[in-house]
């Protein structure tokens, strides 16, 4: 693989049954390209958590992927409420997920900590009332 592969996904915020589709496709792409199982696993976990957050907390958004032989970079953009206190949100166990979301098995407050743990770089730019842009990088 010499060229850079770019992918774009729209994540529907109203359809919970489709949440995770983009992550599944990204994972398959990396597997097919021949990324190491470790890099595939790390990316899969991080992007799934981030995609679910788009649906649960931000009413959907967009995912842009850039794959090179060295790394995969994923940019998740939403126009949701933004994150008031990123440091707090990053703590294990912190969650504002409502009860109906908890009933589905989410809301443990482990998503962002998982993303941090499984990525080589993680950056969150957020503004209240405007939205959030999260950039993740995983080395191949």
């Amino acid at each position, binding site marked *: 693989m010499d060229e850079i592969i770019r992918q774009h996904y729209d994540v529907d915020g109203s359809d919970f049954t489709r949440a*995770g589709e983009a992550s599944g496709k990204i994972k398959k792409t990396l597997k097919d390209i021949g990324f190491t199982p470790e890099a595939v696993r790390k990316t899969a976990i991080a992007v799934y*958590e981030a995609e*679910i957050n788009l649906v649960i907390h931000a009413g959907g958004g967009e995912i842009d992927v850039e794959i090179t032989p060295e790394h995969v970079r994923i940019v998740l953009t939403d126009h949701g409420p933004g994150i008031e206190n990123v440091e707090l949100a990053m703590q294990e166990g912190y969650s504002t997920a409502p009860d109906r979301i908890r009933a589905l*098995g989410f809301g443990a407050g*482990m998503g962002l900590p*998982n993303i941090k743990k499984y990525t080589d770089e993680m950056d969150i730019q957020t503004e209240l009332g405007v939205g959030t842009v999260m950039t993740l990088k995983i080395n191949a």
Partner: protein
Amino acid sequence: MTVQNLIDDFSLEVLCGGADAAQKEVTGGYCGDLLSWVMSKAQEGDCWLTVMGNVNSIGVAVMTDVACILLTENAAFDEDAKLRAEQNGVIVLRSSENAFDLAVKIAEKL
């Protein structure tokens, strides 16, 4: 052992998944219902014991490459979860026993 061995040994109900998926090797197990925990901790080849039979569980199974989902205590399995499981070749099994009892018995066979 394979998923098929698991089905036979414990008389599990097969809710979804074909013969191909049943040939997958089971190399370990994980119990949990909080999906972010499972995402982070379950390993490829695990038999995942849970009461969460919704569409997001299928997403987690796909992302973690667990060998199968085993719904415990006759937990409900949603229609849209079934659809997603079929699309992704995820095998979903069910038992009336609880996670502890099943895990103990499965561990003996691994």
